[in-house]
């Protein structure tokens, strides 16, 4: 074993030697620096391995051969080994990354770089207060020097601000240190901690000074303008180090000194961390400079970590895992992002659209963003999970809220940024070239994130159950992403089919899950089949689609809360990437993501309450929520409803589904939305229905569902964009489902299931076919279509059958839903909601007719005369679905009866009985098979009669119509489609005034305005920043010790 002291000795030795040879041998010095960094990495790495593998005692290094407190001692324990390793790794990678910049500046810069990393090592290891101060100063001075690596005016200003601020902080730390020495008689940290200075009124002031200076080094909001400027102006390579390495070291210093003052100080630390986390992220929302944005994000993350330390007595033994999970994610992601920023060199985040030129860099960027927000499988996901669960256990709702709100705000800007990178149409994209030495470190950081994520999974309670097989499949698809579509499509379909066989035995007997598994997997296969119609390689599509399906099936399989949430987030991530693939999808993908994150956090909060109620990690915990049950149910419902796009939470859906690619729309609409339904069903089944809270919640949800339906259908009726029309229709259909299951009777649920299954089938058909047509015709606007029945008869039939189902017209299966609704509503007594539901159901005819008429009927346009039927690969899955619809229509009993039996135990009364093919309730009866037979027979007879009478009907030409004695020659003027419900809109259009959109717009404006107003404190004046530092000290003092 190489002793840790050699980190210092070798680093300094090399630094001095570099000074000796520097001028003459520039290559030598470069390699010497890397060798030094490599050696330091090796030393800390071997210690880390040692601590991981052998249960070894903490190693103490006594300098000068004397025992502390008389001389300085260093400590190498497992934490120190880990953190120095992290610091050295990022140092080494940073050295590689900056190699050319450093070399250009000269040997001295390399010396400074090396010493900088060394000083951070000592800061982590030292157990002496004054030594800490000295090496903090070494670090600050080195930072101040490295800021100037890019010689520009801004860097100079930032460096000066940094020097002034750290100068004041160092002075405060020095006073604190000397008084700690005065009171404790020792400079050794352990002695000072043992002296319990926080206890006495006279000595507590030293505690305050040390705390405040360490906290200030962590750049708390608002006394952090100097820190942000450093991130903004310095070379991103340096920003990466400051963010990843310095912050890590400072974080550990705070951890070391945490017991200094005792429990009450922890609250202050937590509050300061929390304010920083939220405040810094809030201001990030208004930021466009990538480096500065990263600065805000870094400070926010460090705020979160600070807060976690402040909550350490609540977190107990979980502290280490939580802090590590979040720290390592911040560390790797932030370093990677800064390095990426250095590669792209854009002044504005919009310039990151250039990243598209290199899909691989884009992948890395996405990885980092998702890791920062805390998506699986990254360590931050598990960290946040444990954090929330533990906080919930202690009943710390406020802290949970702060964490989730802050994380959400972080998502606001990170996903805007990611969206720009993926999709923004930006004219001046900066050119960048990828040098291997800049690319390699970013790569490593991404691997670190994935590897650590998988590594820590089993450490979470219940984490070992998480099924990584689907994720492996996703990775495999990434690996073969260069192959053409048909191969990947086949592989994907094969994968899903294989998984169907794999999962069937697992789910057998659990009909609820089986139905949803069927929807997800069969739907997956069918919608994927449409992919055969695409050409090229379709980069990135298949991994993301499979990720979504992996998440979906994971939700089904989940038996624990963690598994459920893991899969839920996976699905969100996958679907986000699918949605944003559309041409004009950027803003919609963005709002989808924001609603999803907010929803996921609501779910997380609810799960926290569930877990804390009985320390049960299984999904059944939802059934025994004793802590704030009403809140928990509400949050969970709201969380799931963000996916079902219920009124108020729906604004993302029309754009997201409408603008998505032609085969993505059916995936996200017919399949993905059902995940929210599944979640709601699980929730409703488990929750304590008898409680007032649950009853009220269900009542409210019933109204929400009904109004969603009305709003959705009416909005759809006034759409001119075919896919948006279908998207609004989805909103409405999900409103029906929400309403149906909120009724919480057997009939209501049967109606819900009927709608779920129907919507799955007809919406898949409609989106597939209409999507295919939209692509074929090159327009979304229905009034530019028309007469397609002649060109695309198969599509027409598919759409016709679908709209008959949506309309609920007998004899097809849509009627089953309507009939069950009437019975359920009468049984439940929700008459007015029911009336709204039926009213909405009739409005559906308006948009259905508009859809089929505008696209297929009316006048064929001149430019479409040579159109052919859409691809068979779209029609085949559509017709499979239609066969499904037909079977369901003719034999509803085969599906509804088992479902009725399955859900009957959950409800007090069994309201639906069967007499052969006849369904009976206390109100009425319906015999699907007979209706089918009667209608079929009558129809055939009538048709036969007509055919007999006019078998020789002559087909006439398109313009051969009686049009006020004129023969029209322009189809455009004769095709009645645009705004055909003008009269209706005049009368009732006020009902769909976009209040909700206006509300969310106002909310987002409010956030941005607050952010804009808040960030004015960063006036740019270094003196003001110094003032902020002093102000922070004084206010903190007055609050903590001033008796205020």
């Amino acid at each position: 074993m190489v002793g840790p002291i050699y980190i210092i000795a070798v680093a300094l030795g090399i630094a001095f030697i570099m000074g000796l040879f520097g001028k003459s041998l520039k290559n030598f010095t470069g390699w010497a620096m890397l060798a030094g960094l490599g050696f330091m990495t090796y030393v800390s790495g071997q210690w880390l391995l040692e601590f991981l593998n052998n249960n070894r005692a903490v190693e103490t290094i006594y300098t000068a051969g004397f025992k502390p407190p008389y001389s300085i001692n260093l400590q190498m324990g497992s934490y120190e080994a880990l953190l120095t390793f992290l610091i050295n790794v990022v140092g080494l990678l940073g050295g590689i990354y900056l190699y050319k910049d450093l070399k250009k500046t000269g040997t001295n810069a390399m010396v400074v770089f090396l010493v900088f990393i060394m000083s951070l090592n000592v800061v982590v290891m030292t157990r002496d207060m004054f030594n800490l101060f000295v090496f903090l100063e070494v670090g600050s001075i080195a930072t101040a020097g490295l800021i100037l690596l890019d010689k520009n005016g801004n860097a100079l200003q930032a460096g000066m601000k940094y020097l002034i601020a750290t100068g004041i902080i160092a002075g405060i730390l020095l006073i604190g240190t000397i008084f700690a020495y005065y009171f404790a008689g020792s400079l050794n940290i352990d002695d000072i901690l043992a002296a319990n200075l926080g206890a006495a009124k006279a000595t507590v002031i030293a505690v305050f000074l040390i705390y405040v200076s360490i906290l200030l080094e962590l750049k708390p909001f608002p006394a952090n303008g100097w820190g942000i400027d450093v991130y903004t102006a310095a070379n991103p390579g340096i920003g990466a180090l400051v963010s990843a390495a310095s912050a890590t070291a400072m974080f550990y210093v705070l951890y070391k000194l945490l017991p200094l003052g005792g429990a009450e100080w922890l609250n202050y630390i937590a509050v300061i961390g929390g304010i920083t986390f939220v405040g810094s992220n809030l201001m990030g929302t208004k930021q466009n400079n990538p480096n500065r944005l990263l600065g805000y994000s870094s400070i926010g993350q460090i705020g979160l970590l600070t807060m976690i330390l402040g909550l350490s007595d609540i977190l107990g033994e979980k502290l280490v895992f939580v802090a590590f999970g979040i720290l390592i994610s911040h560390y790797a992601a932030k370093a990677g992002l800064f390095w990426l920023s250095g590669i792209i060199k854009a002044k504005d985040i919009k310039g990151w659209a250039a990243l598209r030129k290199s899909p691989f860099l884009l992948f890395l960027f996405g990885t980092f963003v998702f890791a920062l927000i805390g998506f699986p499988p990254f360590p931050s996901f598990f960290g946040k999970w444990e954090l929330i669960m533990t906080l919930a256990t202690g009943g710390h709702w406020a802290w949970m809220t702060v964490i989730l709100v802050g994380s959400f705000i972080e998502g606001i800007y990170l996903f805007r940024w990611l969206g720009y990178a993926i999709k923004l149409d930006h004219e001046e994209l900066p050119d960048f070239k990828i040098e291997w030495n800049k690319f390699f470190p970013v790569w490593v950081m991404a691997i670190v994130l994935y590897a650590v994520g998988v590594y820590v999974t089993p450490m979470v309670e219940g984490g070992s159950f998480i099924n990584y097989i689907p994720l492996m499949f996703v990775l495999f698809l990434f690996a073969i992403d260069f192959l053409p579509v048909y191969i990947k499509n086949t592989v994907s379909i094969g994968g899903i089919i294989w998984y169907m066989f794999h999962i069937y035995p697992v789910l057998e007997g659990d009909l609820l899950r089986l139905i949803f598994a069927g929807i997800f997997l069969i739907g997956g296969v069918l919608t994927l089949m449409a992919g055969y119609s695409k050409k090229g390689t379709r980069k990135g599509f298949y991994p993301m689609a499979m990720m979504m399906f992996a998440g979906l099936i994971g939700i089904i399989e989940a038996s624990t809360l963690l598994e459920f949430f893991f899969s839920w987030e996976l699905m969100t991530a996958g679907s986000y990437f699918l949605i944003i693939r559309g041409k004009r999808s950027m803003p919609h993908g963005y709002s989808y993501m924001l609603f999803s994150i907010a929803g996921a956090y609501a779910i997380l909060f609810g799960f926290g309450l569930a877990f804390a109620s009985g320390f049960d990690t299984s999904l059944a915990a939802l059934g025994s929520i004793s802590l704030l049950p009403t809140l928990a149910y509400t949050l969970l419902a709201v969380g799931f409803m963000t996916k079902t796009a219920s009124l108020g939470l729906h604004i993302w859906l029309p754009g997201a589904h409408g603008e998505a690619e032609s085969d993505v729309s059916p995936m996200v609409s017919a399949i993905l939305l059902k995940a929210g339904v599944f979640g709601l069903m699980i929730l409703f089944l488990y929750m304590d229905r008898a409680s007032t809270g649950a009853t009220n919640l269900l009542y409210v949800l019933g109204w929400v569902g009904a109004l969603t339906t009305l709003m959705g259908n009416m909005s759809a009726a006034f759409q001119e964009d075919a896919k948006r029309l279908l998207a609004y229709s989805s909103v409405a259909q999900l409103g029906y489902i929400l309403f149906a299951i909120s009724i919480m009777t057997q009939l209501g649920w049967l109606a819900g299931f009927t709608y779920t299954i129907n919507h799955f089938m007809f919406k898949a058909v409609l989106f597939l076919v209409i999507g295919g047509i939209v692509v074929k015709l090159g327009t979304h606007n229905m009034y530019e279509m028309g007469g397609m029945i002649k060109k695309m008869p198969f599509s027409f039939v598919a759409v016709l059958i679908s709209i008959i189902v949506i309309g609920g017209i007998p004899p097809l299966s849509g009627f089953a839903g309507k009939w069950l609704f009437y019975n359920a509503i009468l049984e439940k007594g929700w008459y007015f909601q029911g009336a709204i539901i039926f009213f909405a159901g009739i409005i559906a005819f308006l948009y259905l007719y508009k859809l089929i008429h505008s696209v297929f009927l009316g006048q064929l346009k001149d430019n479409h005369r040579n159109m052919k039927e859409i691809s068979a690969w779209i029609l085949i899955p559509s017709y499979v679905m239609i066969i499904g619809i037909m079977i369901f229509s003719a034999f509803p009993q085969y599906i509804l009866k088992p479902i009725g039996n399955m859900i009957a135990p959950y409800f007090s009364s069994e309201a639906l009985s069967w007499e052969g093919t006849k369904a009976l309730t206390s109100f009425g009866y319906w015999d699907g098979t007979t209706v089918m037979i009667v209608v079929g027979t009558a129809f055939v007879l009538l048709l036969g009669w007509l055919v007999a009478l006019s078998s020789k009907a002559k087909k006439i030409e398109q313009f051969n119509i009686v049009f006020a004695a004129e023969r029209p020659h322009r189809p455009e003027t004769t095709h009645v489609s645009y705004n055909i419900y003008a009269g209706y809109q005049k009368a009732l259009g006020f009902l769909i005034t976009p209040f909700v959109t206006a509300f969310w717009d106002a909310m987002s404006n409010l956030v941005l305005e607050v952010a804009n107003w808040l960030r004015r404190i960063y006036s740019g004046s270094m003196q003001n920043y110094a003032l902020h530092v002093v102000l922070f000290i004084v206010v903190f003092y007055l609050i903590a010790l001033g008796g205020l």
Partner: protein
Amino acid sequence: MDYSITKFLWTLLGLFIVLNWGMLMSSTMRRIGARVAGRYGIPWYQPWIDLVKLYSLRTHLTHGTMFYIGPVFRLMGGVGIFLFLPMVYGNPHWSNYSFSGDLVLILYFQFFGMLGMALGAGEGGQPFSAIGISRGLSQFATIEVPMTLAVISIAIQYQTLSISDIVAAQQGGFMTWTLWTNPLATGAAMLSLLGAFGHSPFNLVKAPNEIPIGPPTEYHGTFLGVLRTNGAILHVAEAALFMNLFFGGAGSWFELIIKTFLIYFWSVFVGTVFPRFRIEQSVRWFLKVPTILGILAIIIFL
């Protein structure tokens, strides 16, 4: 569940009666309308003449498959309502195929014909058709609001959705009719009926002055004959539905004829008195008085 041939023939006979009564009723109404306007009007047998003439026309022009099938859908809509509606109370021969579904089935089967009509007319490519359909749908989407409320109200009142049961509950004499036991629901339904029959003031759908005859503009010959056939059946069937729900049903064909005539007359009567509404006016109108009546009809049961 009787699928026998006998049943089929009885039903066919019923259909024949309904068709003829429907034609007679429509000619009578037109005569009444003409007399009110000071004209002489058509002879009572004019519909039969029209029908025979239309069916025997030899020009059959079609715009395409949907144009061709559309009238079949339309006729199926009318016949279907007839099929699922028990016509004469207490007589199994005249209960048709109502055992396969209840009131809800009939409510939703109305759309079957509408949809077929709309699709067929749509393929004609005639702008008047499309305009008529859009108006028709807009109006229909509104008249269903009071109708639905009324249906919910009587379903609460009788605790059933079965039409036979509703009729049975009204068999205690004149005063047990829903008209008296639930006047609010009856009011709402009767007002919405005005829109369903599409007479003035709610006849903008066909608006004879502006857009030749609305949706069926392009239809002629056999196709128009099918549509006329349907019109006759549908009017009687709809009136019979209201009769069953609100006016005690019918114990015999005679009672049925009287009651359906009066119900139909109600809409014609209003039509001769009021001028035509624009579409947004009619939409607003249905959402005012009839809807409020419907809501009150439910509130009284809460």
